[in-house]
């Protein structure tokens, strides 16, 4: 008789190799949500023929662990994830094959053998660039100074569980104004403060800070954050 759902499903072998993938979300692909990216990435792995390890169970899924993902609409030059493989692979070949199979705008920057330690421990801060078309540099400076002068700037955001209020200030390590853009260094804390929360905070600190067009946000770097200097070291370095 054929197996029934009560029998134990096939067990899949554990990974023999973990690779760390650094990738970018560019241009129109920045509107990809994290769920969208996950689906697209799994399909790319299959098209590229990457020998993925699968979890065991009734609905096996590829062994992928994601670092903290940029919000939908934000571009990124520094997203991270790790993949578990059942055969040892050349990271450079995997990078080329994956990059070729991903849709335009989702680009693989680097693939290296993963170092020990959880990805989350390696990703404690990010540097973001915020482009604000039409806002004069003086307005930016005033808002940033007012924001940084306070200890707490409460903001609200709609979450899955409803409207939540939290502080947008303590996660901000520094904000530089460069060529009418903001360069914001953020510590990853709980709750995770995102660039749009900082913008809401800037608005609340300085009413003149009112962008006409939606800002374009890009994550420039992500890694271990030194709270003193504000420097960010890439994972594994």
């Amino acid at each position, binding site marked *: *008789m*054929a*197996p*029934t*759902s*009560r029998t134990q*499903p*096939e067990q899949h072998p554990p990974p023999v190799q973990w690779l760390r993938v650094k990738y970018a979300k560019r*241009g*129109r*692909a920045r*509107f*990809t*949500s994290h*769920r*969208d*990216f996950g*689906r*697209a990435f*799994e*399909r*790319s*792995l*299959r*098209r*590229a*023929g*990457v*020998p993925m390890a*699968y979890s065991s169970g*009734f*609905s*096996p899924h590829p062994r992928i662990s994601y670092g903290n993902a940029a919000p*939908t*609409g934000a571009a990124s030059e520094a997203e991270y994830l790790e993949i578990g493989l059942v*055969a*040892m*692979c*050349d990271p450079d*070949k*995997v990078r080329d*094959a994956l990059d070729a*199979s991903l*849709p*335009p*705008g989702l680009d693989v920057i680097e693939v290296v053998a993963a170092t020990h330690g959880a990805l989350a421990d390696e990703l404690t801060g990010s540097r973001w660039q915020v482009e604000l078309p039409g806002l004069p540099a003086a307005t930016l400076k005033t808002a940033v100074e007012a924001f940084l002068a306070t200890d707490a700037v409460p903001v609200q955001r709609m979450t899955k569980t409803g409207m939540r209020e939290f502080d947008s200030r303590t996660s901000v390590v520094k904000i530089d104004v460069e060529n009418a853009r903001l360069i914001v260094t953020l510590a990853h804390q709980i709750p995770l403060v995102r660039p749009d929360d900082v913008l809401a905070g800037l608005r609340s600190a300085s009413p003149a800070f009112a962008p006409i*067009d*939606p800002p374009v946000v890009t994550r420039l770097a992500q890694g271990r954050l030194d709270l003193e200097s504000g420097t960010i070291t890439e994972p594994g370095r």
Partner: protein
Amino acid sequence: MSMIATGPPSVFPRLEPLLPRVSKPIQYVGGELNSVTKEWEAVEVRWCLSYPDAYEVGLPNQGIAILYEVLNEHDWILAERTYAVWPDMEALMREHAVPQFTLDSHRPVGEFDVFGLSFATELGYTNMLTALDLAGIPIHAHDRREHDPIVLAGGHAAFNPEPIADFLDAAVLGDGEEIALTISAAIREWKADGRTGGRDGLLLRLAAGGGVYVPKFYDVDYLPDGRIHRVAPNRGGVPFRVSKHTVMDLDNWPYPKKPLVPLAETVHERYAVEIFRGCTRGCRFCQAGMITRPVRERSIEVIGEMVQRGIETTGLEEVGLLSLSSSDHSEIGEITRQLADRYEGSNISLSLPSTRVDAFNVDLANELSRNGRRSGLTFAPEGGTERMRKVINKMVTEDDLVRTVAAAYSHGWRQVKLYFMCGLPTETDEDVLAIAKLAKRVIATGREVSGRRDIRCTVSIGGFVPKPHTPFQWTAQCDHETVDARLGKLRDAIRGDRQYSRAIGFRYHDGKPSVIEGLLSRGDRRVGEIIEAVWRDGGRFDGWSEHFSYERWAACTEQCLAGSVVDLDWYTTRERDYAEVLPWDHLDAGLDREWLWEDWQDALDEVEVPDCRWTPCFECGVCPELDTTIQIGPTGRKLLPLTPVADLSKTR
């Protein structure tokens, strides 16, 4: 993303600032894997294809996917795509004067030669009007200017395009592969000839061949009682009847080869291969089965090639073997066994829409789930009693059903889903209440053969809508009060029995939307005004229960038909007689009208008609009328072996 240097500029720069302000912006971005962009000036004929529903529903549509590839394979043709935008985006586009755009190059839809819409259902009509309006194309065909695209409808609903006749320049019936290329060639020629006769000159060329219906070349006269008196061409060179198109030898048309893979989530996340087209089971309610005849099978070899190439080019893990009744393929046993062998141990999962009530279907499903989970199987008895099933020509006995579900539960399937319809011709309360008895017998059988109590059965019921080109095209549609009352009694009968109520799920919809679907299905040109009124009143996305408003449709119908001899009931709950000219009588699906009428009479007499694949021809008329034949196996051939995959291994 490649830069588009020529032709109308991309609207993307104007669209981009709006994207952070709408839900699921990814659906408006395009750039899907396998999408095609071409230089505007490098091509001669430009199509904008549309499935007039949300991206998540429209993208997986097979019809559009096939035509997109068939057209784009020719270097002189360009095909791009557009879908219905949600109301939040529509409002922003109106505010910022962004026109309806294609996803491939974000070009304005109004710039194309043809705006081709595929209607799987009538509930997309209001969305068509939104798209036309946003594109800056006048919604009425008679207001269109020389430079406006030809608005062309296809898909199953186009077999009665009369309700949208005022909005269409043309419609085609049947398989689109060949006629889309024929139309492209005609446009190319017309352009080369200096656009002789202008827009009407082109339409006349298309209509003259008998394969393209141009509504405005036909006049409809009405009798004083509201019935149609006559439909006739109003100029020379236009045929009295327009025929459907049938692609023979599906192996020559192995599309889609490289379907689009979206970033956004869609309703079907699978690679679908049509294993055959057409169905001669003869279910009398089924428009698809009637209008897609004859049966044309794709061979096992080509199916095997398509599956492998589809997996390689998309990276999808799920493969659906689709058709109107997949287990009827003459080599389905070999197809499933050989594919299951080929992909055993991989993470590729194969599925078969199993709707026929037949233990053989369970064997196939077992084969396709050798190591996977056996969650649910679906069967469609459609009617609750044997009498009802004889009326609809669904030849399944209660014992067949019980044998089938017993096979399913004993092979580890946990849940059986049963599809039924309510509101069928001659139906009584007893016919519907019998569904409860049937479901209980299914559970009792399942508990007995599996030895478990946690098995389930879900009863899912849809309201029956009579469709054109079926034997039920003459029947009175059941009113929604009766449908709702019967469903209420059935629900009570299922819930009232404590021994079974928790094991039986019951899914149904109220009867009102079916009435509007009925109005649009069997309507004539006078219904166009209602569609427009509903749209002007804000009607959008009628296929979505959260957007559909029966009250709006009913009010607009009353208002538009005020003072006329016809009303909503006249279009829906009224039985037609043999002599009445039906709005689609001049459109030829190949079915002999006499045969349809006899089949309707047989239905009333509870007489069944067998399948012509295994019994002599019963003269439905399609093959001689359209010069087609049944194309079935078995071929006795085998799947071809696969070639190895990419090597990413570590070089030592």
